[in-house]
């Protein structure tokens, strides 16, 4: 099979996995324990990483834009730049990229190890569906948890920008906060909070797909884990572009 044929075959298999996920979405009621456990592992356990990611993104954004705006005496615009930048773009994208690495690698390595040790075959052999037992709980957990994590990154980023702006450019905290909040329109919030749902869905499904198709021992597992993170990260950037260019203009 040529490289191109393999790619088409892979896309077909991935599409079938997505079809399976939608077809068996209702099975989540039989797998609540697994879903809650995944929510804890994907969501709660990622809190510190997202907190740090959001905080430093907001701080760097405030410093970089602050230095440029200072030359025009327009430091009052830092709040608006940080707020819109975090909510519309950087909050969702940084959260997505960090979770693509953390959650994507976790899902692929777990499912890949299960595939290599015949545990996936065992599930099927004993009449259980790997999609229902393993993929759907992870997908739902990502769909539910990515939104609050993005919200945390947004808020922490704006707060970080506010503190740096106050210390470095002597902006007033209350003015900064008021400007940051009032600059946000419903359209900004809608786009900013719609992105993580798409990011979460694709990170979960891509990483599960690579996990379930692992073969070739530990080398294959390592390769598939890298692929899962790379493909998820690349797709996040593509989806972000589509939202910024197409969806934003349609709204």
């Amino acid at each position, binding site marked *: *099979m040529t490289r191109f044929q393999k790619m088409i075959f892979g896309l077909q298999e991935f599409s079938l996995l997505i079809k399976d996920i939608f077809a068996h979405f209702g099975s989540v009621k039989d797998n609540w324990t697994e879903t809650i456990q995944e929510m804890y592992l994907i969501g709660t356990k990622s809190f510190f990483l997202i907190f740090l990611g959001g905080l430093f993104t907001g701080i760097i954004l405030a410093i970089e834009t602050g230095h440029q705006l200072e030359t025009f005496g327009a430091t009052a615009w830092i709040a608006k730049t940080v707020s819109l930048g975090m909510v519309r773009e950087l909050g969702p994208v940084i959260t997505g990229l960090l979770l693509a690495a953390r959650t994507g690698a976790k899902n692929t390595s777990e499912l890949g190890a299960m595939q290599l040790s*015949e*545990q996936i*075959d*065992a599930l*099927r*052999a*004993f009449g*259980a569906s790997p999609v229902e037992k393993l993929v759907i709980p992870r997908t739902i957990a990502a769909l539910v948890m990515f939104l609050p994590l993005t919200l945390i990154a947004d808020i922490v980023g704006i707060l970080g920008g506010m503190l740096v702006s106050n210390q470095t450019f002597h902006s007033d905290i209350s003015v900064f906060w008021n400007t940051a909040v009032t600059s946000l329109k419903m359209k900004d919030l809608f786009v900013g909070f719609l992105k993580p749902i798409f990011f979460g869905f694709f990170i979960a499904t891509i990483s599960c797909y690579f996990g379930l198709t692992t073969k070739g021992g530990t080398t294959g597992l390592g390769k598939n884990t890298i692929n899962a993170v790379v493909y998820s990260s690349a797709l996040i950037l593509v989806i972000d572009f589509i939202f910024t260019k197409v969806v934003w203009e349609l709204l």
Partner: protein
Amino acid sequence: MIELKNISITLNDNVILDDVTLSIEMGMNTIILGPSGAGKSSILKIILGLWKPDNGEIIFEGKNVCKMTDDEILQLRKKVGIVFQGNALFDSLTVAENILYFLPDKKKLSENEPKYKIEELLSFVNLSGTENLYPEELSGGMKKRVAIARALAFNPQVILFDEPTTGLDPINTESVLELIEKLKQNGTTSVIVTHILDDAIEVGDNFIVINEGKIVEAGSLEKILRSKNPFVKEFFKRFIEENHNPFIRISKEVNK
């Protein structure tokens, strides 16, 4: 009877099975013998419907497994259990949870029923008291016996064993073989894939020898030993030599 008719399967341009036809009699221990990579384990995966062959049909209880609906395949898998080569136990679950995980109709069972079922199954495989241990706390032989207990949870008519004694020490090997014999006495059909001749001969009733995806000989042990096929002769050479060696023969008889 389980019948495989003209089964062929190719994976990534490699011929795994080539026009394989065989039948497995119920209530007997059927051994599928052959070297590593001969296609033995593929037969088990095809019987269970985990792999779909490119050609041919698998007949179980008069129905073609290849043409079964998803629901029919689920019903089939409740009648046919499997013990994987690597056991395939779930690391994050205890022994009891591993067995309970696949227990059918758990919701219909009363409060204490799962507990009694686990105790009964673990007692059958001589592992009472290990309910709360995790797979990493068990030896290779114990893991194998838990895998057998898990396969028995459905009360299957047929159990497929993929290399059940590979990597086990002689004591654990003996206990696994004893379990297979015990299952036969209970009326369970076993299909055992192995490349270990001694173990195969100890529990086997019917033998199928496979090489490079093709069946080269099938029948009773006597028929196999009389085979003129060069591969079969080579494969059984050591066994025949040992049984002609008086010291080894006497040693085996004394041990029995």
